[in-house]
């Protein structure tokens, strides 16, 4: 059980900042569920804040579990559950990353179809993007990290657009603050997980990070930046829409961009949707990369071969999801699964790991 990643494949510790940022802002910001506003109304931003802060604990757990000695989740599974059960669990995790890639991908295609090109067929867009994905994933993990850097820059540039809704907004929409009970806030937090989904790829790419122990702060900083960003976006939605309208708006962020108008471009939302391409591609590619990586670690299948299989299945599944209600159901299901994965499975792993290492320490002492 040792680090089997070659030195020249490693990335610097601070790139984790970009990776966390990019994997997270996949699609959540764009298609953020409006029902967080049904649960906690004007206090929705508190719910998002709670969610973001609680994820710091999960990141801390991941760093504790995988940090010393360095391993990824496959090694961890083997260590806790033994060879056979551990490998089967790792294989199950492929389906999780597959699902989260599917969610990001299909939701984006749905937005493109609904907002810009109603006539374009799902398979046309899917085929185009899959070629792009295969090209990028073939480049390896360091290429994906570079892509994450671009996504972060784009994300921060697009973030400047919140000036417009805040400028047009009405401060009274935020008042009175904290007018909802704790259960309502937590329910909304639960619903807001869709925004944060994606960072758990850290479990798989962890061995690729150089000097893991010293660089914990970058992961936390990435998470914090994202939390601040999503809280700001939520607040700007709240300022811009009256509570009644917000509950009826399906894509609040895109609705906001509909009002922005420059002299040289009148419908910024179309540009905005395609800028988001740069934002969601890294998160999608890293999920797919995780699938091939786990396959390689468990079955020793070459990533190039497995990538072809994974993408072929991916294409077939995406084309199957061709109705509005299926896209919605996919989103709900993924967020549910993700929530259980992050808040039940990872803490469970952590507790088992903790018991296990305690026992080991005892044995060593004896």
């Amino acid at each position, binding site marked *: 059980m040792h680090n089997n990643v070659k030195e020249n494949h490693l990335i610097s510790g601070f790139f984790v900042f970009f990776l966390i940022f990019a994997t997270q802002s996949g699609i959540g910001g764009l298609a953020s569920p409006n029902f967080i506003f049904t649960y906690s109304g004007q206090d929705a931003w508190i719910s998002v804040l709670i969610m973001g802060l609680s994820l710091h604990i999960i990141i801390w757990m991941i760093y504790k579990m995988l940090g010393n000695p360095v391993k990824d989740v496959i090694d961890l599974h083997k260590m806790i559950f033994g060879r056979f059960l551990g490998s089967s669990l790792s294989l199950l995790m492929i389906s999780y990353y597959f699902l989260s890639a599917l969610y990001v991908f299909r939701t984006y295609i749905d937005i493109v179809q*609904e*907002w810009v*090109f109603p*006539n*374009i067929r799902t398979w*046309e867009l899917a*085929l*185009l993007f899959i*070629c*792009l994905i295969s*090209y990028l994933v*073939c480049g390896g993990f360091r290429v994906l990290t570079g892509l994450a850097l671009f996504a972060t820059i784009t994300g921060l540039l697009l973030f400047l657009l919140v000036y417009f809704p805040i400028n*047009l907004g*009405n401060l*009274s*929409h*935020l*008042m*009175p603050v904290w*007018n909802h009970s704790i259960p309502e806030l937590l329910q909304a937090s639960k619903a807001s997980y869709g925004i944060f989904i994606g960072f758990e790829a850290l479990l798989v790419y962890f061995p690729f990070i150089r000097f893991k122990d010293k660089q914990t702060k970058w992961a936390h900083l990435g998470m914090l930046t994202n939390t601040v960003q999503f809280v700001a976006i939520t607040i700007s939605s709240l300022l811009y*829409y*009256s*509570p*009644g*309208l917000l*509950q*009826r*708006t399906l894509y609040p962020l*895109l*609705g906001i961009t*509909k*009002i922005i*108008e420059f002299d040289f471009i*009148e*419908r910024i*939302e179309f540009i905005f949707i395609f800028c988001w391409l740069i934002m969601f591609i890294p998160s999608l590619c890293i999920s797919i990369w995780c699938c091939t990586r786990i396959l390689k670690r468990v079955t020793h299948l070459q990533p190039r071969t497995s990538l072809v299989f994974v993408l072929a299945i991916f294409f077939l599944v995406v084309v199957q999801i061709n109705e509005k209600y299926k896209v919605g159901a996919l989103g709900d299901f993924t967020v549910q699964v993700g929530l259980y994965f992050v808040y039940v499975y990872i803490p469970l792993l952590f507790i088992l790991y903790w018991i296990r290492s305690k026992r080991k320490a005892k044995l060593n002492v004896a």
Partner: protein
Amino acid sequence: MKKYVSLLLVCFLIPGCAKQEIIDRIKIVQSIGLDVQGDTYKSSISYASYDKKKRLDPITAEALTLPGVWLPQNTKSDDQVVLGQVRTIVISEKLARKSISDLAVNLLRDPTISNNAAIVISKPEISTVISKTFRDPPFYLAGLIKQNMEKGNTPLTNAHYVLDQFYGDGQDVYVPVLNLDENGLIFMDGLGVFKDDKLRLFLTEKESLLLKLLKDKPKSMTGSYEFKWKNDEAVYFRVLHGRRKILFEQNDHVTISLKLYLQIKGLPKNKNYDNKSNLLELEQDIKQHLTNEIEVMLKKFQMNDVDPIGFGEIFRSNHRNWNEQEFKKDTYSKLYFEVNPEIVILYSGVGVSAQ
């Protein structure tokens, strides 16, 4: 690697399979007129043309549903009708009196119509107004409305504001009104205020400025106003910018503080306004006049049970146990308004007006 790149390049050809839309082979709608007759919606549209010599006529259609009017519209057009550049949606008084809920739902659900589009009520026939918009294509009507919102007396409103007020609690929709003068020119004729989804009352051009002062952002609190003074002398001034604060002191006592920066243009001829006391007297009188007018207007809103200023929304933000029905039924009609305008005369011209 080369193989991959060429494969990638080929893939970029795929979007070519999507439908192309070339700008002079589509009809870009600039204004939509909507009317209702019984159960059917009637519409007429004006569009941009790239051929100056071409004679343009509005295309009219009838349909059962509001989005459905595009279907017959397309049957009458040689090019596909597209809605991405709609700047104005003109609704007839009849439709406004019947219900605008269909329009609101349509605006909410349709991603192609811009949120910057203005919604206006037309007092004359829809088809007359729409055919007038061909006077100075493109976007004559949109320009007219925008100019009045930015520099004139019309409060800022667009599709987003209308939706916001329509679906939001504790506020009612208001939209500008269009009319034709005797020469056949379109002009802005005040506002129409809705109660829920039905048009309830019309406001005059003057009242529309007062509403603008109570509703708009400080930057766009502009407009011009004239009134007759005590000794039958008229005063005309422009509001350059201003500030506003609406506070609920107790449950039923509302204080509205206004600070308005004015440029006086029309002055009474009998006095010299370069000295302090006369200017202060004028300020005092303008203040008195505005207080009265605003109070009368707010009374009118209470009598008609409409809340275009959104006092309900302000009430909601100040009270933890907000109930829209209760506010509408009991509280709103009992609200007492205290209006405190503060007038600052910045400029009064560069010559001496006194005789």
